[in-house]
């Protein structure tokens, strides 16, 4: 574009400058109008939810987009703004949020606020008093106060509310054995109950003056049961007391109510815990033990995957780039086929084909042999590299073909004239030129395979595992699949720990990529 732009006015005079710019202006205004309309719609929705951070973000983005595209200045920004916004939303924000989670105890039992934890603990500590009867219930209202009009199984009717325990009444209207109304009170219909359900669901009516007898609550507005709570929350001291055992649980700063003997009441709540997750990542025995061998295998796996796919892809690209080869196009299409299947599916199909007793490979190719492709520690590693080779070589074949075709023929001819043999031409002319464009792709391929969770999970799930080791890590687990198992398999989910690992892996891959890119600079100087 930068080449054609200055030429255009000179070679072709613009016939109707005003009409063209007018059309462009109309398109521009229409496009921005759509953007603004959608933003406005989003603002209404977000505003209704009182989500002010997102609200502010949408306002800022909309203003920036409008200013940049309406102004005659900011030409570079017109090209950069959309990409930068996407980068912030889909990359920077996610990395930042992951980093934040890494410094919290977010996970099973710690996934919300302290208020939620208190409410949940109190809610689940309500136990129905054993062998207590179910009461027929009519919710009645007088002067804005809700009362329970209840009929016990013997047909006796009583009334009570939050401040007054149940007291018997005898002037109620009875229908079908249940009191449905009483003079001086309005009977609530179901829709009225639903409209006031938060108040009514929270209403407790003591059945007698003695609190220990329990209180009536209603789960559905049409029946009431006697409950007793075995946890009492003291708001001023911020402690939970178990009224049966008398144990006091207090907030000791670990994100859960904790008794003096260390027993925690769950759910707790989410707190920031500093570098604890990072300390655990390196200190926890179940992680530190296998960390070294897993890290070693991860590097070996990523390196071998890149090396094997690149060598095979390059070899095939060179072969199919030779003009003497017949039917090159047909072969090329066939070569790309593995690339056309979803990797998920391919991994599953391969897992089936490599099955020891019933798989295609053993049954057909090896005549019924019992080769434990996926269940022997070393063969499983070999199988993973082989399957990844099958999945990955078409990509390398494609990019190498492209790069080879962009190398001018004259270079080869000139070298041949100078007496270079084909191998020397490839080694000293083609290969360096090829690496200039391919090296960054090799680095990104390395980063991709370093975190190639899908392949491992689908093919071996990290197995086979040495059961005598006592840790849930197998012979083919790479760092990311080990993190998954440590954080998500087992009794609880630990998002904090998983995030800490993600950040560590992010830094690791980032450093490797940065170093490699620096190394490739020397290649570029060839040009």
């Amino acid at each position, binding site marked *: 574009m930068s080449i054609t*732009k200055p030429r255009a006015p000179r070679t072709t005079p613009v016939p109707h400058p005003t009409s063209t710019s007018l059309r462009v202006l109309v398109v*521009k205004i229409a*496009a921005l109008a759509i*953007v603004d309309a*959608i*933003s406005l719609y*989003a603002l209404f929705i*977000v505003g*209704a*939810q009182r989500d002010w951070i*997102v609200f502010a*973000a949408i306002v800022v*983005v*909309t203003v920036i*987009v409008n200013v940049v595209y309406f102004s005659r200045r900011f030409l570079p920004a*017109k090209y950069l*703004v*959309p990409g930068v916004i*996407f980068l912030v*939303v889909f990359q920077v924000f996610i990395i930042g949020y992951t980093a934040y989670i890494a410094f919290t105890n977010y996970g099973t039992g710690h*996934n*919300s606020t302290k208020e*939620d934890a208190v409410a949940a603990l109190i*809610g*689940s500590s*309500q136990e129905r008093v054993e062998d207590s009867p*179910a009461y027929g219930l009519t919710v009645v209202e007088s002067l804005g106060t809700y009362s329970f009009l209840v009929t016990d199984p013997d047909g006796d009717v009583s009334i009570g509310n939050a401040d007054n325990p149940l007291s018997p009444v005898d002037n109620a209207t009875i229908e079908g054995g249940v009191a449905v109304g009483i003079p001086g009170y309005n009977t609530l219909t*179901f*829709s009225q*109950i*639903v*409209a006031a*359900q*938060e108040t009514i*669901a929270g209403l407790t009516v003591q059945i007698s003056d003695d609190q220990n007898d329990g209180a009536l609550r209603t*789960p*559905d*507005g*049409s*029946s009431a*049961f006697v409950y007793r709570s075995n946890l009492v929350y003291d708001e001023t001291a911020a402690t939970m007391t178990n009224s049966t055992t008398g144990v006091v649980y207090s907030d000791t700063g670990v994100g859960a109510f904790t008794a003096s003997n260390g027993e925690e009441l*769950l*759910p707790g709540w989410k707190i920031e815990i500093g570098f604890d997750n990072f300390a655990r990542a390196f200190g926890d025995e179940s992680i530190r033990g296998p960390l070294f061998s897993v890290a070693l295998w991860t590097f070996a796996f990523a390196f071998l995957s890149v090396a094997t796919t690149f060598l095979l892809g390059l070899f095939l690209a060179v072969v199919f780039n030779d003009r003497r080869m017949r039917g090159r196009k047909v072969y090329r299409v066939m070569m790309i086929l593995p690339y056309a299947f979803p990797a998920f599916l391919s991994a599953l199909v391969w897992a*089936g084909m490599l*099955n020891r007793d*019933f798989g295609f490979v053993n049954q057909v190719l090896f005549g019924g042999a019992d080769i434990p492709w*996926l*269940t022997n520690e070393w063969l499983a590693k070999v199988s993973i590299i082989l399957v990844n080779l099958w999945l990955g070589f078409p990509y390398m074949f494609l990019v190498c073909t492209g790069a080879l075709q962009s190398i001018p023929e004259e270079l080869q001819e000139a070298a041949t004239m100078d007496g270079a043999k084909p191998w020397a031409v490839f080694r000293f002319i083609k290969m360096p030129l090829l690496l200039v464009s391919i090296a960054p792709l090799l680095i990104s391929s390395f980063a991709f395979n370093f975190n190639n969770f899908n392949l491992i999970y689908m093919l071996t*799930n990290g*197995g*086979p*595992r040495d*059961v*005598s080791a*006592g840790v*849930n890590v197998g012979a083919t687990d790479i760092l990311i699949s080990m993190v998954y198992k440590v954080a998500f*398999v*087992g*009794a*609880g989910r630990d998002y904090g720990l998983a995030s800490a690992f993600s950040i560590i892996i992010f830094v690791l891959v980032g450093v490797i990529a940065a170093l490699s890119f620096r190394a490739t600079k020397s290649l570029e100087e060839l040009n």
Partner: protein
Amino acid sequence: MVHHSRGRLAAGAVLLTAALALTACSASEPGDSTDSAGSLTVWVDADRAAVLKDAAAEFTKESGVEVKLVQKDFADIQEQFIAQVPTGKGPDITIGAHDWLGNFVTNGVVAPVELGDKAGDFQEVAVTAMSFDGVTYGVPYSIENIAMLRNTALAPTAPTSYDDMIAMGKSAGTEFPFIVQVGPESDPYHLYPFQTSFGAPVFGTNADGSYNADELTIGDAGGDQFATWLAQQGAAGNLNISLTGDLAKEKFNAGASPFFLTGPWNVADAQAAGIDVAVDPIPAPGPNAAQPFVGVQGFFVSAKSTNTLAASEFLTNYIATESVQTALYEVGKRAPALTASFEAASADPIIAGFGEVGATAVPMPNIPEMGSVWQFWGVTEAAIIGGQADPVGLWQKMAADVQGAI
């Protein structure tokens, strides 16, 4: 050229803002608290959604409360419910499996449900499964367990014992005497009835039928016998760690064995493959009865729902009725949890057969400690079946590892 690319950029900006708006929309979609007075949001999987639509319409007609059904992939519900309830954007009610309950309670995302006297209308195992620490949290709708499928063409009568079954399988001359899916990391769920027949349940039970996490019984003497038995069966070829779920089903449907230890989910395909199946009790290789795990599905109420009364009314007085439970049975062919519906469904001999086994079965533990068991259980069984080392030693090592993880 410049003008054109400006237009394209503007289009890009449109897309961007649209994306932002959509994110905002999708976040606000379920259980939007501002307009929830008089409406219920229910998460449900695709199969159940159609049935619930009718129940919901009836509920709306009678109570005036609108019911919004949001379809979810069943496998994603557990994680999403735990993540979204604390933000206040979760649903009022969700469908779920009973073994998620421990996780839900530990995270404080479910509210108790009072079944009241309705509790007696359900099969006992279903209500026990939906309870945690003595409190009921869900309204069950289906019960699922495994039993022994028999290909009547290959084995006309039910076996009387495990050895009898193997003998019948061998005399049938098929590829396998009997089939159960095992897989490279074994399948403790499918092998559990054999384990219980040796008297080695995973956890001890409290008086009310709930599991006691402090009492790990998997490593008891019965466990050692089971481990020895596993090794023998592995050596004899009756259990094979290469036989994954897909293969097991394929082989049975191809007539490669007269017996198949599996659940009701594989019956329809077997019948479609032209096999006349009967459902038998699981023959016990050990001295005790072979009790499989029961999986119960049902509905839970969110701890942060502002519509608890309406939610509770919908569950106890609509979902827990015979017509809805029967309709749910008809779409999924899972045995209903409501006794009346179950009895009606038992006219089908397949359901009756699974139900008979389920009546003596035990709920799969819903305590969070179970997660620590799964991660060691399967691989150890696989190692024993594969004959890697001394079975009793491996089994005891596993029991110690599980205890350590808990």
